[in-house]
């Protein structure tokens, strides 16, 4: 099965962005339907749908909701629109093309989990989508879809937009909560988990944009109906952000379980003429890279990616062909994690910097004979040792790049130049020398 328009059915219509156009295409009917259901019924449908979090971790959404305490304690629903995993841009597309779809999904979800207040946390750079969302929120408020006694149901849900200001770590749910509370976006210790003690120490659910939007379809088609796409363990469709060395990069919705190579060759128009596939990062920069060989039988679902030692992550696919030097590509990734480590936990704070210095040392012809093994050792000891997963996210690409393209690293260290002809070398930058910050 190839590309489907399930969540993105109406994305091609410019009017879908506004309230009138959204309603003309069936918008907010599912909110009406949901408000007539019991909250537990909605949760049950979401559980039955098998929907898994679309932000990266792939945790079952219904199960996450089930962790909330079963009492009347005030609680919050937060939408994670901090999309900042390198390679990912599908949430931006969704918010730009269908802001009301997200709002509808959020109000339904807030009702289901019993939250009277919901926030969309959007990254500060997304000023375009933020403006669109603010307008949509105002429209929805005016039309009575947000606020007190929604559509006469007696249900109250307030919705507001919160702006980040440039920090990858705020995509981690407890980092997001710290940021929303007005502090540095540093992840919090778990336990307590957010569902028990989150925003302002109240029970909190954090869901990705795409996850919340999918709730609208689940209400429409029912939990079982949602499963018409996808596989047993990876139900439904997913929006993938495809970028890199392909003819037609962009956002595509395909059913989970779709063949990676079909996706690249059909939807994305294949590689550039004369190029050969070298590897694919399947789930954002932190997902271990798949070698060209591993790509051949890869399918886009949680279980196949896990079997291949990688992950579906946020659904950000980055295609790399044989014109790129893997050492150079890794250097932009290590630079990213060094720049974005919040600095709380020692293994991450120090490890990201150490790794970055070694990789850039190699790129600048200063590689040392033991560097490859040292990189593996450092990365190995950054895994599973910290409060949040950023340290793991920084370690995994190092481990996979160095293991799968070891000869490129060895060559660079020995010859002091890239194995790939024409690779340009850029000045090594300290994160504090990157500009005006």
């Amino acid at each position: 099965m190839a590309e489907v328009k399930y969540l993105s059915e109406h994305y091609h219509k410019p009017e879908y962005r506004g309230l009138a156009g959204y309603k003309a295409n069936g918008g907010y009917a599912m909110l009406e339907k949901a408000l007539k259901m019991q909250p537990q019924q909605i949760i049950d449908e979401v559980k039955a749908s098998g929907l898994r979090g679309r932000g990266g971790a792939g945790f079952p959404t219904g199960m996450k909701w089930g962790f909330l305490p079963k009492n009347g304690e005030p609680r919050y629903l937060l939408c994670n629109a901090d999309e900042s995993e390198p390679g990912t841009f599908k949430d931006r597309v969704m918010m730009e093309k269908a802001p009301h779809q997200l709002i509808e999904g959020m109000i339904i979800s807030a009702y289901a989990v019993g939250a009277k207040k919901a926030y969309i946390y959007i990254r500060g750079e997304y000023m375009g989508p933020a403006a669109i969302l603010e307008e949509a929120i105002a429209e929805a408020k005016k039309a009575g879809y947000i606020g007190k006694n929604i559509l006469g149901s007696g249900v109250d849900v307030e919705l507001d937009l919160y702006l980040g200001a440039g920090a990858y770590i705020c995509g981690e749910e407890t980092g997001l909560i710290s940021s929303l509370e007005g502090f540095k976006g540093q992840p919090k210790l778990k336990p307590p988990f957010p569902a028990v003690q989150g925003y302002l120490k109240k029970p909190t659910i954090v869901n990705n944009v795409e996850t919340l939007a999918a709730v609208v379809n689940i209400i429409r088609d029912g939990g079982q109906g949602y499963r018409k796409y996808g596989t047993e363990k990876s139900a439904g469709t997913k929006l993938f952000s495809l970028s890199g060395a392909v003819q037609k990069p962009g956002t595509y919705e395909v059913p989970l379980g779709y063949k990676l190579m079909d996706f690249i060759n059909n939807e994305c128009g294949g590689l550039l003429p004369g190029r050969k596939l070298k590897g694919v990062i399947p789930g954002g920069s932190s997902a271990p890279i798949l070698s060209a060989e591993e790509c051949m039988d890869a399918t886009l679902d949680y279980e196949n990616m896990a079997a291949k030692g990688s992950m579906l992550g946020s659904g950000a696919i980055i295609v790399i062909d044989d014109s790129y030097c893997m050492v150079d590509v890794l250097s932009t990734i290590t630079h990213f994690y060094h720049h974005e480590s919040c600095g709380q936990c020692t293994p991450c704070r120090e490890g990201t910097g150490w790794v970055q210095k070694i990789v850039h040392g190699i790129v600048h012809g200063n590689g040392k004979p033991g560097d490859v093994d040292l990189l593996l050792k450092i990365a190995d000891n950054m895994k599973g040792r910290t409060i949040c997963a950023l340290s793991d996210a920084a370690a995994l690409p190092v481990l996979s790049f160095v293991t799968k393209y070891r000869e490129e690293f060895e060559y660079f260290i020995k010859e002091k130049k890239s194995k790939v002809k024409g690779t340009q070398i850029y000045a090594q930058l300290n994160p504090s020398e990157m500009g005006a910050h």
Partner: protein
Amino acid sequence: MPESNNTAAPATEPKMLKMTINGKEVEVKEGTSIIEAYSQHGMSIAHYCWHPGLSVAGVCRLCMVEIEGNPRLQIACNTAVTDGMKVNNESEKVKDAVKWGLDFHLINHPLDCPICDQAGECGLQDQYMAYGKYTPEMAEKKVKKHKVVDLGPRVVLDSERCILCSRCVRFTDEVSKTNELGIFNRGDRAEIGTFEGKPLDNNYSLNTVDICPVGALTSKDFRFRQRVWFLKEHNSICTGCSTGCNTRVFYNKEGLFRIKPRYNKDINGYWMTDTGRDAYKFVNKEARLLDARVVSNGRGEWIAPKLAARKAGEALKGAGKSVALVVTGQYMNEEYEALLSYFKNEVGTDRVFHWINNPETFDSFDGLLARGDKNPNTKGLLAEMAKQGFTAQWRELAEGLQTGAIKTVVVAGPENQAVFPDLKAKIMELSKASKLVWLQAGKNDQLEALTGDVTLIPLKTYVEKTGTYVNYAGIAQKVHKGLTVVPNALSLVEVVALMKGEELPADDTYNQVGLGRVHNEFTMVRGTL
């Protein structure tokens, strides 16, 4: 790790949990974290950011333990003990994680131990010796950060040494609640600091130096003065106010160098004030009266204190109500007992007056530890005065001096002259008496310049004698003699004995414990040292 030595029984007994630490079965209260269990049972575990007086940060990632049934290592500080839990931090897996954790701490830490003030009491040194991997593999350039940053009047920061454990920031957020410190920037560029124009300037700032596990925060007063391994430690009590914080004083043969707090759950927790830490300066020789001074007929001479006390006693014996005693709240119960009963029974006077140094702020409290009563033992003094039936009012002293009814005034003056703002005025007032006997530890130019019939007798300070202080809440705390700074100085107990004409025991028993002289009304002796 400091432990409470006087745990009060809680209203309801908490449930006890059984657990196994490194193969040893122990019991802990429900709600205890694994690291607390380690510390309660004296088992060693690597850690930097955890501090029992602060919230859990969980950022140094060193207190890794292996919990049976959990494939991932967990941090002991943020994991609660459950019944039947089996933990260990001795497996190869844990040791390896800790080794790497230490290496991550060290890759950007300067190896300037030879010039670092923390050397000898450095967490990084100690833990690396215990758990480190000894084969550093970091060959890259270290991150450059700010050095010698003036954080405030008492504290200096070396950012490169900082391991970002956040203890100091948590202290200013949670304990002093003054919020001066922050961690600015992120990743390995993050640095501790203050906002310009808002220095670390509160009366608790030096606690940040104490809890800094490395040499990042150092005390301006102490830095570069002594290598810590040349100093001896002695447990004591802060005499800076009526709270009675438990302390450790650090000294060598030259005198005291610094004071640090010692944990006492009921009195000061883990902390003490900055002003209390200055209570070593008046102990040292340069501030002390070294011998007795006797002035008569306009001629002054320095004589042995014992002789001076004996002579003064001869004149006081049976002198009755022409003698007045002025006494401050700076001395020990045992001294008050000796002094006051001597004046009542042998001198025969009830003209005994309590000198309150700062009546306006006497009852104030900063909400944390510092009290307006800048005396360690006002409570003990008042109790002894009541016991002896002394009720004289200060006004009667002024009248007696005016009318000449009071001829001789004996003063047990301030040990810590800095907290007596009215000292100058009192000297002027009391020197109106035809004979003045002034007992005090510190030197004072005004006293030494007096020309009438004056005797100055040097006293010992709180680290040079044994006895009991009773704090504002009625908690009696005993301190022991730790060192001698001025060999000729006397305690009030010794002064009284000499005044009575007794000989001082050669074995210094008056300053030893178990003399049988230490008895007081405060049966609840807590925080005994």
